[in-house]
Each structure stands twice: as structure tokens, then as C-alpha cells.
């Protein structure tokens, strides 16, 4: 009986919590349950969800990527400088940060797969390296249109109008970033559940030795997962630049924690017991709803971290308690 209850709460717990939180805010706040607010919530979680998709992929191969936050920061700043400092055409503005994300992923994979450094430590080091690079590159400045340099001269460029549509535009009343988010959630979900590549990723994460002996090239799979993680973080950074219309220093720092929380909330969604995209999306929504509701209730901004941290602890407790029980 107790066993059943536990499994039920594991399976539906996260969804129930989302619904309860949603209901709570809807009763307390008249404006909460409106189309424009829900659209706001989705819009606000778009960036973190892209980062969380990357975290999902690295976790699915039983790895971990702490460097995603720094990758977001770097890619935001690079995107902004490409337009403002160098007036590059749009396609370069998009390709360069994506390539940088992929390179960071490759470096992570080299350290973890080739040098066999534990993933947490390797990506912790990369987090600092990438974080340092982005501040050095931007010389500590936020990058904005026609920004003034220390020598008095001004940057010639400004953010591309088309580019700003990515994060600020709407199509048929739906924010474009939300449309992009939904498309990617569906695509990556399909990729993980229906393709042989997804199967290889999960098997590698589930039992690397068995996968290897079955003829799966596990090193390649793990490398690609880290590359994907870097690329999705870079997408998050591009969206960030487009959303705020400038290149903020340390933009990605808070996103790491939120993305990880989202993924672990997602572990238990519908009893998956492993990283999965739908779960990650639900986790993101939960965090988005909480932040949105708390803001509207005028809870101090700094207190949000306490709530987010508590959500992560709760999700981790449920996940690891149930997973470790079922192992024995």
C-alpha cells in the first residue's frame, strides 16, 4: 500500500504540484489565469528551457554539464558584439555563437571522455574558463547599441531589427520564442524517443558497458551529447540577446540552477525515472509559474532563489529516494 502510494506520487507528483501551484495563484491573483499572463510565462521560460534541453541530453548519457550558464553568457555577448562592434550580417550573427557552443561542448567531451575527468569537475573548470573568457572579451561592459568605449569613441552598429524579432516578436499573437520553444521540444522529444540515436543515448546512460559491448560507439554518443548541450546553451544565449536587445554580462549565471531544477523535476514526470524532454518542459513551466506568481505577489526578488532552490531539493529528494529504493 505504502509502496503504491509512493509510486503514484512519483508518477504524478510533479504534475500535481504544477496544477496546485497554478490553482493557488489563480485564486489569489485575478490577473494570473489570463491568456496574456500565460503567454508571458511561456515567453519567460523559453530561454531557460533551451538550456534545460541541453542539460537533459548530457544527463541522459549519465553525464553532467555545469558550463551551460557560462556558455549562455558568452554566446549572448558574442551575438551582441557581432552586430554592435562588427556589424556582421545576420547569418554570421547566428552561426558564430552556435559554433562556439559546439566547441565548448567538444572541449567538455575531450576532458570527460578522453581525459576521463569526472564530469562535474571538468565542466566546473570549463564554467570558470568560459565565464572568464566572456568577461575578458567584453572587457566587463554590457554591450548595447552605439555603446561608448573608454577612449570616447562610439560603436558603429546596433542590434539588427530582424534579429530582435526572435526574442521580442509575435506571430498570430504568439511570441516567436514560444513557437521556437514548442517546435524544439517536440523535435527533441521525437529524437530521443523515436530515433536510433535517442536509443543509443539512453542505453549509453543506462549501462555504458553493456552498450559498448553491444557495438554502440559510446564515446561518440557521449561526445555528441556534450556538443548538443553546448549548442542548446548557445541558442539560449542568442535568444537572451534578442530578448533584452543588448549583451548583458553574466546573463546565463542564474540559468544553470533553473535548468538543472527543471530537468530533475522532469525526471519524475509520468514516472519516466530518467531525463526526458516533456518532463523538462513541465519542470520549466513549474519554475516559470512560481517566479511569475511570486513576482505578482510582490515577493522580494532575492527570495526567488530560495523558492527555486527548494523546488530543486524537493525534486531531487523524490527522484533519488524512489530511484534508489527501486534499485535494491
Amino acid at each position, binding site marked *: 500500500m505504502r509502496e503504491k502510494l509512493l509510486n503514484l506520487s512519483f508518477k504524478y507528483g510533479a504534475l500535481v504540484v504544477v496544477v496546485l501551484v497554478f490553482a493557488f495563484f489563480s485564486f489569489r491573483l485575478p490577473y494570473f489565469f489570463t491568456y496574456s499572463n500565460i503567454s508571458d510565462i511561456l515567453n519567460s521560460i523559453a530561454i531557460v528551457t533551451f538550456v534545460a534541453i541541453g542539460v537533459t541530453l548530457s544527463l541522459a548519457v549519465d553525464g553532467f554539464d555545469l558550463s551551460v550558464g557560462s556558455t549562455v553568457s558568452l554566446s549572448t555577448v558574442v551575438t551582441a558584439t557581432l552586430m554592435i562592434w562588427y556589424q556582421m550580417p545576420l547569418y554570421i550573427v547566428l552561426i558564430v555563437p552556435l559554433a562556439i557552443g559546439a566547441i565548448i561542448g567538444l572541449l567538455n567531451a575531450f576532458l570527460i571522455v578522453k581525459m576521463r575527468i569526472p564530469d562535474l569537475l571538468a565542466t566546473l573548470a570549463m564554467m570558470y574558463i568560459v565565464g572568464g573568457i566572456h568577461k575578458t572579451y567584453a572587457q566587463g561592459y554590457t554591450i548595447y547599441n552605439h555603446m561608448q568605449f573608454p577612449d570616447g569613441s562610439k560603436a558603429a552598429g546596433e542590434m539588427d531589427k530582424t534579429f530582435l524579432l526572435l526574442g521580442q516578436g509575435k506571430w498570430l499573437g504568439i511570441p516567436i520564442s514560444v513557437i521556437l520553444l514548442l517546435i524544439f521540444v517536440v523535435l527533441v522529444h521525437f529524437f530521443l524517443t523515436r530515433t536510433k540515436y535517442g536509443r543509443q543515448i539512453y542505453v549509453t546512460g543506462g549501462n555504458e558497458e553493456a*552498450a559498448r*559491448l*553491444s*557495438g554502440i560507439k559510446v564515446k561518440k554518443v557521449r561526445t555528441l551529447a556534450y556538443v548538443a548541450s553546448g549548442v542548446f546553451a548557445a541558442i539560449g544565449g542568442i535568444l537572451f540577446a534578442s530578448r533584452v536587445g543588448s549583451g548583458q554580462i553574466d546573463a546565463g549565471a542564474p540559468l544553470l540552477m533553473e535548468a538543472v531544477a527543471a530537468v530533475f523535476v522532469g525526471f519524475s514526470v509520468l514516472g519516466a525515472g530518467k531525463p526526458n524532454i516533456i518532463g523538462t518542459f513541465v519542470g520549466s513551466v513549474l519554475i516559470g509559474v512560481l517566479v511569475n506568481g511570486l513576482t505578482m505577489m510582490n515577493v522580494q526578488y532575492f527570495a526567488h532563489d530560495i523558492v527555486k532552490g527548494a523546488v530543486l531539493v524537493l525534486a531531487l529528494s523524490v527522484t533519488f529516494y524512489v530511484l534508489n529504493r527501486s534499485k535494491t
Partner: protein
Amino acid sequence: MSLSPKVLEMREITKSFAGVTALNGVDLTLEGGQIHALLGANGAGKSTLMKILSGAYGRDGGSMKLLGQEVRFQGPSDAKLHGVHCVYQEVDAALVPQLTVAENVMLDELAKPGAKTWISPGETARRAEAVLERLKVNVPVKRKVAELSIAEKQMILLARILSQDAKVIIFDEPTAPLSGAEAESFFRILHELKDQGVACVFITHRLQEVMDHADRVTVMRDGRVVYTGPLGDAGGIDGLISHMLGKTFAEEFPKVPAEIGDVLLRVNGLKRGTKVRGVDLEVRRGQIVAVVGLVGAGKSELARLLAGADRPDAGTIELKGRAFRFRQPADAVQAGIVSIPEERRKQGIVIQDSVERNLSLPLLSQLSRLGVMSARRERSLAERVISALGIKTSSPKLEVKYLSGGNQQKVAIGKWLERGAEVLVFDEPTKGVDIGAKSDIFRIIGNLAAQGKGIVYFTSELDEGLGIGDRIAVMVDGRIAGVFERGEITQEQALFYASGGRREQLS
């Protein structure tokens, strides 16, 4: 020299694991100043008995008296406080590599309740030297343990045990990792310990060592003691072997007739580390080559080389006349060599995945189009394999962790059925499998051979190897000691060779 008879008496010890009896009324008496050899085939119950003696396991029934006093150890550290010590094969696990020899010898002193807070390095070194002196071991006490050889580490461990007044010391295959000369110096120390009145229990598979060094012998089989007495009365190596084997119940080895064809796999001078030291092997179409040997002979390591799981230091693997260098298992699978590894749950199957997903694992490309998996084709593959091998599962969607050991093994074999492999490498496929499933597995392997596949079957169960193999290769210490045709060799002879005996010694 204090000859205190009956240091330890175990009476009617019983122990079972999850309903399976491991020990069934075992008596064992140890006397001080004696080397007592404990023998038995794998699974006879030696380790279980020794784990009870050293406090690692509790006993279900029976009594244990140490120096006439009834004892029940709460754990290994409790047993140590009573003077009962165990030296496992992995000596590294018991030492701290970055500390010096002296510090390691005196390690237990440091951990003792009421130990001094301030430690004088000079004092530690002096006392350690005194202990090493007693054993006549010559190792500088200031050296780091990490720099020592395995044999030296073993001596340090013994010195450490001796520093705390040991009454009983159990040696679990102490000579397995040692070279000939190193083993000699080990035995010198063993005799030192004996002369100091310690009761030494000595587990080994090398019968010659027993003949040379033991005073008393106890032979176990199927959880019982079948012989115990002075070495002189045991009837020599032949007598010991027949005690160890006894009358095994007639197990069925269904043999499917298969036509033996051309050479498929040829292995020349394969080497890796100290475990595989130059192996030559040949497997023909339709042939089952059983590689038999005791635990630790290097069988699993050889199997891993064949499967591409490890890279050889030297030697060649040829398949159908073409030489291959496997960089990873994927290369071996591509070439046509697939493996059913020993650690089924860790290496053979993905325990939390369904039967269907496990079976399709090596066939993902065949079951997908443009990368997208076809659920229909995956299901029909699973159904074909399940019925072909008689896997007992309620549904292809059932997770394999709910299957019995035998059925899990069939899944580990079944995933290769449609992969078009030429050579299948089985490593202890019947481990932890019940009798019924065992004969199923033999039949499956026989059928594969009849289809013209080459089979390499690694086992430490000699009767099994002799029952299923068309040829029997006996492996000892990383080498093939001899290759025999089916029926050319008896179990007794196989055990003789597997224990390190040479052909010319056998009359």
C-alpha cells in the same frame, strides 16, 4: 612455540542465501602451529565458510568456539579484535598506498580505541622494523607502499596482522597473483607464522602447493565437508582431486550434431598484461571450443580481447583469414565476433530496459529508416527471438530485471541472433542459472554451432566444458596448457592441468 590444540572449533555450521543452501552442517577444527589447506571446486562453500569465520557473514546455525569460548563475531573488525584475520587476494584494498611501510604495519595501532594522540615517527619505524624482523622480511620501512610489488605488499599486510597478536589467519588464494620466486618467499613467511603458533588456513587451487606445505587438509563439496584429516592420509593429488569432484550428479549436456568446417577464427600469441600471456587458439565453423580453467586463469580477460572490449598488447586475431585490430567492441561486432559477457547484469543487458529494447540493441540501424525506429519491426524481431529461444516473459515490454537469471541470459544471447555474427564468445554463460535454463542454453549454443557459427565457450565448471566442447583448451596462468579433442580428457585430468600440472607428470 606454543602448540595449543584446537584454537578454533566450528561445529554444524549452516548458512543459506535466499533459500539456497551454501553450507550444510560444516565442521572445521583449526590447531595452532598448523597450515590447514581448504580445498573445493568453485561454489563448494569455501568462501562462505571463511567469511563466517572472519566475521563478514553471520551464521544461520551451528557453533563456533575460539580457544574453548563460544564466539559470535559482529563483523570483521570484531573478529580481528579476537585475533582472527583474513588476507584477501586484493592486498591493495587493505593498505594505504601513500603511507610508508612502517605506518602501514602499525595502522591498526592508530585506529585502536585509546590510541595515543601524538605519534612519534621514530617509534613507529622501530616497532615496525621489529615486526618485519620477526618475519625475516627485508623492506625499508620508510618506503611508500605504493612503490612496492604485490608480493611485498602481501608481506606488509602479514606483518601488520602479526603486529596485533593473531591467532587465526585465513589466506584466500594468496599465491594467485605471485610469480614463482615470490610464492617461495610467501611460503617462507607462512612457515614463520606457523612456527610462531598461528593457525593458518590456506585456500588455493594449486594442489602442488598443498602437497608441499599443508599439514592438514579439508575438502569441501556442495556445502559439506567430504574429507578432513592429515595431508598424508589424503591419497596424494589424485586423492584430493577425486574428493573435490566426487560423484557429480549426471547433468545433461544436450549435444546437437554439427558439421565442422573451415577455420573461422585464428588467434596467435595474444597478450595483455599479466592475465593473458600468449594465447594461440583456433575455432572452426560448427565447432564449440571450450576454454576451461580455474577462476583467475585469465579466461575473462581473453574473452574480452576477442570481443574487442580491451586492446591486446601483442598478438593477432584473424577472422576468415583476415587480420583485425579491434579498437572497440563495435569493430569486433562489425567483423562478426560478438560476446555474451560474464557479468550479465552489468555488461550483457540493460537491466531497466524492456526485453524488446534489449533485443534490438545491436540492430538499431537495421530496425530504423533515416534514423527513425520502426516500432512494428522492432516488435516482430522481439517476438521472433522470444519464441526461437523460449524466453519466458509475460510481454516483450516487460523490463528484463523481472526475468529469471536464465531468461536474462537468453536475452543477452538473443540480441545477437539476427546480427549475422560468425563467432560467438560465451563467458561463463551458466553462472547463476538454474538447471532447466542451463540445458536450454546448451541447446541454443548447440544450435548456433549447427548453423555453422564458431563458438568459444569459457567456463570454470570443468564438467560443463568437457560436456559441451568439441575441443577442450585448458587455460592456466594466462596460457593454454593443452588442447584436447572431445573424449580425450577426463575431468580429473582437466583439473590436474588446470591446477598447473604438466603433461609429463601424469602417469
